[in-house]
């Protein structure tokens, strides 16, 4: 199919509409639309964009859409892809926002929200568990995790400062380790 602004927008709008229950479903959705149906990119390329999108800051779905859109049609493609991906989310919330204030005082809704508050904690727990298995796997990462957790719980340090500090520490630690390994190789 032709790759133009409108067709890219339409494809990502479709994916954005189906993107329910968190971003991790985006990979199978994009594979079916972009790789299998449209044959715009290969599955290897898509996986690489997704991995990069997850390693960079920001919303993974948006990062992946921007990478893919750029590959398809440069900056224009990136704008089409990210707008298409985000628009369904935006429209759904605007519609709900009007509804929200009208229904929030109904007892049944409040009971549901009380219950769902528990569900959110369960989902959070699962997210932490999954992040933990691929983020904390040596002494260095355990130290970073512990210090960052204490700093965040204290409520005294702005979160961006915690992120920037760990980023800088990570860069220097990697340098130190690389140097140590070079020395080992020489001996």
């Amino acid at each position, binding site marked *: 199919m032709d790759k133009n602004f409108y067709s890219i927008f339409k494809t990502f709008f479709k994916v*954005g509409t189906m993107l*329910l229950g*968190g971003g991790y479903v985006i990979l199978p959705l994009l594979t079916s639309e972009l790789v299998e149906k449209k044959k715009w990119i290969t599955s290897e390329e898509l996986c690489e964009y997704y991995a990069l999108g997850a390693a960079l800051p920001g919303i993974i779905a948006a990062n992946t859409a921007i990478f893919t859109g750029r590959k398809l049609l440069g900056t224009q493609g990136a704008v089409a892809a990210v707008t298409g991906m985000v628009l369904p989310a935006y429209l759904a919330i605007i519609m709900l926002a009007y509804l929200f204030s009208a229904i929030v005082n109904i007892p049944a809704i409040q*009971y549901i929200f009380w219950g*769902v508050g528990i569900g959110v904690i369960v*989902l959070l727990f*699962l997210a932490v568990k999954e992040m933990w298995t691929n983020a*904390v796997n040596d002494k260095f990462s355990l130290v970073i995790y512990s210090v960052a957790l204490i700093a965040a719980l204290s409520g005294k340090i702005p979160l961006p400062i915690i992120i920037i500090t760990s980023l800088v520490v990570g860069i220097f630690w990697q340098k130190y380790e690389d140097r140590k390994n070079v020395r080992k190789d020489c001996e």
Partner: protein
Amino acid sequence: MMLYLQLFWQFFQIGIFSFGGGYATMPFLYEIADKFHWYSPSELTNMLAVSSITPGPVGVNVATFAGFNSGGVLGSVLATTAVILPSFIIVTIVSKTLEKFKTNRMVKGAIRAIKPAGCALLTSVGIKLLFTSNLHLFGTLILIALIITSFVKKLDPLLYLAITAAAGLIIGYLNWIGI
């Protein structure tokens, strides 16, 4: 005017500093709830539940919601754009230097440290939620039961929300606790 600038700046920062996708935006969203009162922490929890049954990434959903709550339609457009804009800039830079980016040792070190830090921020949100929600005895029991069973078999995220929503309705109507 000040409000719009603040909205833009706060959500722009989320776009820059949240690593690890979806839920990684939560620590920042709770921090904003504390600082600006555009929405309350309990509204945010409701919002997170709502956003798992509406299309789109959680971060975008909450940005739209917070923007709309505090600054109407214009606020919602600004906040949503602001949360995406850093992605646009960063991805553009990275895709131009893709090969270098993948093998760069500094990038490797940064990512190695940011992953556990992001995980720690998320943990802190979980701990704070645990202590600030009115779970009562029933809620605590449901939470423990769901977490234990998740080790045996992890259900679909939507199913956890459905189960707890039903539990909330039953407990609420039986009037076991004053919600």
